[in-house]
């Protein structure tokens, strides 16, 4: 295995930035006295892809929802720009699965307009917005889908459309919650390679919840093993071979690896 941890060389990685950081500090979540997450702390540099792995029910999605501010939690999520000043964090979010109504007459363009524009979608999508949306869609290679209804897209196409939306406007942190459920192997490979390209081009911090350990190993800089707390945060190869990993996943580890 030719796995070298991608500590991206300084001249490339930090040219546009200088090292902004997302810091998660002592994040905990309780539900009626039940501790779902306890004292999770890690930091994430720009340009870095951190994969969150862990058993089902271990709190991965709770972590995501807390970082997004959708769930009350203890601890803090902070963002420091390159000059060391704390700033508000802009997050782009790619949701887990869309169990929306597949017959809804909403096109990709409508989706962008309803998220980005004040002009009501029933008056049509403005030219400028169409053009700028097309550019972002083009970047994830789905520019041609502008007028397609969301319900007609394949799983992979839909995820790339949502990725494009999450990149508009450009966030500092991109959060993906198991973005690839229901995508075939080719679509998976394509999605991850596009994601990797986007990360390099825009120097994004990416937090990715994933079940797919092969891809985690291939693309992530580090993996965070979440099982009620942060059990381990290290380069993916090390995490996958760790004692903690085997404990958390129990006998299911082999299966999960193939999933």
């Amino acid at each position, binding site marked *: 295995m030719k796995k070298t941890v991608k500590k991206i060389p300084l001249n490339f990685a930090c040219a546009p930035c200088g090292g902004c950081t997302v810091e998660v500090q002592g994040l905990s979540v309780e539900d009626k006295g039940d501790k779902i997450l306890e004292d999770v702390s890690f930091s994430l540099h720009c340009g870095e892809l951190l994969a969150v792995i862990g058993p089902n029910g271990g709190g991965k999605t709770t972590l995501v929802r807390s970082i*997004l501010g*959708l769930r009350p939690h203890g601890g803090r999520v902070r963002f420091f720009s390159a000059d060391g000043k704390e700033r508000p964090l802009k997050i782009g979010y790619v949701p887990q699965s869309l169990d929306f109504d597949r*017959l809804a007459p*909403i096109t990709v363009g*409508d989706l962008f*307009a*309803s998220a980005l*524009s004040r*002009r*009501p979608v029933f008056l049509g999508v403005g030219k400028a917005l169409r053009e700028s949306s097309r550019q972002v869609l083009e970047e994830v290679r789905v520019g041609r889908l502008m007028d397609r209804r969301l319900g007609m897209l394949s799983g992979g196409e839909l995820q790339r459309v949502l990725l494009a939306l999450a990149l508009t406007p450009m966030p500092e942190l991109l959060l993906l919650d198991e973005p690839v459920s229901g995508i075939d192997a080719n679509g998976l490979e394509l999605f991850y390679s596009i994601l990797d390209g986007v990360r390099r081009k825009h120097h994004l911090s990416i937090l990715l919840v994933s079940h797919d350990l092969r891809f985690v190993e291939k693309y992530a800089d580090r993996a965070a093993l979440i099982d009620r707390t942060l059990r381990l945060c290290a380069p993916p190869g090390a995490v996958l071979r760790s004692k903690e990993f085997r404990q958390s996943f129990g006998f299911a580890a082999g299966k999960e690896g193939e999933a």
Partner: protein
Amino acid sequence: MNLWYAICEALPLGCFAYDFMKNALLALLLLCPALSALGTVVVNRSMSFFSDSLGHSAMTGVGLGVLLGIAEPTLAMILFGVAFAFGLVWVKSRSAASTDTTIGVFSATAIALGLVLMSKGGGLASFASYLSGDLLSVTWGDIGGLFWLLVAVAAFCTVFYNKLALMGVNEPLARTRGVHTRWIEYLFAAVVAVAVMVSIRFVGVLLINALLVLPAAAARNVARSMRGYVWLAVGFSLLAGVAGLLLSFALDTATGATVVLAAAVCYFFTLPFAKR
């Protein structure tokens, strides 16, 4: 008013010699777009059972209005309807149990309570008009109310339609993009409640939901984008409104029911064009 009457009389249709027909036509032209525009959201968010239940709650509203001695029950109905809608949204957001069942329970309770209140004193029959509605007794004052309803719905849609569309795709996504989903959920419920209560006297408890849902359902069969969807829904409802009014005059049938039937024809006519 005179202008509208002049326009109607200029139409080459004998039935518009009657003032009640002129009023009914104008009422439909105001009411149909307002209801069908809200209906596009109701249908997209799979809330038709919710709006149906809201219509039923009007029964309790009327009953309460009578019990409290309010001669004009519309206000009592609006207040009760909004409270009822808030209750539904609240229960829906709280319970993990099937909303379907919850709404059914609310709905049944509202009907029964309304019937009990209305029947106290034995005057149940005098409320029959609320069941099927009465479009031909629309007064000029009613039309003022419907006009403001349409203005309010148009303003609401202009400001909130995008947010509702995004919520329809994915609610967490909408929230991360700064949409106050909870707040908008309540607001939308309140607007639907007001629209239902204002128009229920004309369309009736039994048919109100059809006017909300049917045009949007028909539009969904053929629309390819949100723009087409909303305008087709409005178009279908206007078409059904006018056609239904004329037919009901010609056939001497209940106007509200005929309008709804016309909308149903739109739906079944477009059904073969529905994309899977």
